[in-house]
């Protein structure tokens, strides 16, 4: 029996998503993710290699952490269709770290029978440090009635919902989907990059490049 679905009519700007605390990352998980994603960059799975390039240990690919934050969205927005999902990698996640995923509705609007909510998203480690931040846009049915109508081939319920946004939150992380607009605007931490020591690795980056989540300077507005 599927879980109860989420409908647009019940969502308010400012609603917080129930925080998702993931199990601590361990090396088995890193191996599994490498196998499942096909990204066998040794900095994520080979402890000896990682140390040989100056890292304290293997570390999690950024895409794994993005997957965790994706779970937060999918768990909350059951019945919704994800339209957009962007993140910025901020801090590395190490074996033993616990990732806590959080989010808040930053915007809602509807027009011509299509209803959207934007969510501000972020992930913290067990020390409360920001490791990732981003945003997503979800399309939802207005209500159960709207879903039933559309599933039976009828036209959607049309209610014009003017855009409502979180006043205090500049829509940086969810705005417009123009990820390049907010592209790396600050230098990666040089010492961190040196420690990753990828210079000694001459192998060809595969189509999925090394997801080296370097320590970018934390955005000013880390958390709420």
């Amino acid at each position, binding site marked *: 029996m599927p879980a109860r679905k989420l409908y647009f009519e019940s969502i308010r700007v400012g609603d917080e998503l129930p925080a998702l605390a993931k199990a601590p990352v361990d090396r088995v998980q890193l191996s599994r993710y490498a196998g499942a994603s096909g990204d066998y960059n040794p900095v994520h799975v080979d402890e000896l290699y990682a140390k040989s390039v100056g890292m304290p240990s293997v570390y999690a690919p950024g895409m*794994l952490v993005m*997957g965790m934050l994706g779970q937060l969205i999918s*768990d909350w927005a059951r019945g919704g269709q994800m*339209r957009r999902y962007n993140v910025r990698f901020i801090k590395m996640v190490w074996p033993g770290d616990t990732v806590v995923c959080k989010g808040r509705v930053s915007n809602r609007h509807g027009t011509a029978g299509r209803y959207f909510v934007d969510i501000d998203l972020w992930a913290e480690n067990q020390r409360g440090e920001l490791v990732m931040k981003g945003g997503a846009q979800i399309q939802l049915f207005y209500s159960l009635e709207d879903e039933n109508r559309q599933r039976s081939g009828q036209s959607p319920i049309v209610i014009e919902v003017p855009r409502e946004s979180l006043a205090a939150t500049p829509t940086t992380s969810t705005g417009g989907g123009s990820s*390049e607009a907010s592209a790396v605007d600050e230098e990666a931490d040089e010492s961190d*990059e040196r420690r990753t020591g990828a210079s000694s690795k001459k192998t060809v980056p595969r189509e999925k490049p090394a997801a080296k989540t370097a320590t970018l300077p934390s955005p000013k507005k880390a958390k709420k």
Partner: protein
Amino acid sequence: MLDKNAIGRASPPTLNEVEKGAIRRFAEAIGDYNPIYYDEEYARASGYPTIIAPPTFPASFHSAADLRELLGVGIKSLLHAEQGFDYERPIFAGDRIYVSTRVADVSERQGMSGKMDIAVIEDEGRDEEGNLVFRARRTLVVRASKETP
């Protein structure tokens, strides 16, 4: 400085068949046990034709892209700074998706330790009819090496 001529360079589409087992293993690796990724009946009862893939599943797709060839440089290190996805629809088990990769942008930024090269690489997934399924965009800080590709 990366070669601006790299912008627009693309790899030919590569077929990716979306297998149930691959979806299951991908979701398990994330530690996400939402039955929508595992249970056919549950997925159908939820309004989908079959099980769907987690949002970051395109990370597991292959493309024919070789970044060194696309960017025209040897690569000393890459730093994955940002990632974004746009979805036209969910990805379903059984989908046959053609993925191509192109250089969306290259630029140069002044960082604390000198200039940084930024490359924005975009993957595009289309179904067999040519309909767009998703776009994935990664922003990379590229350290080029002296060697030529």
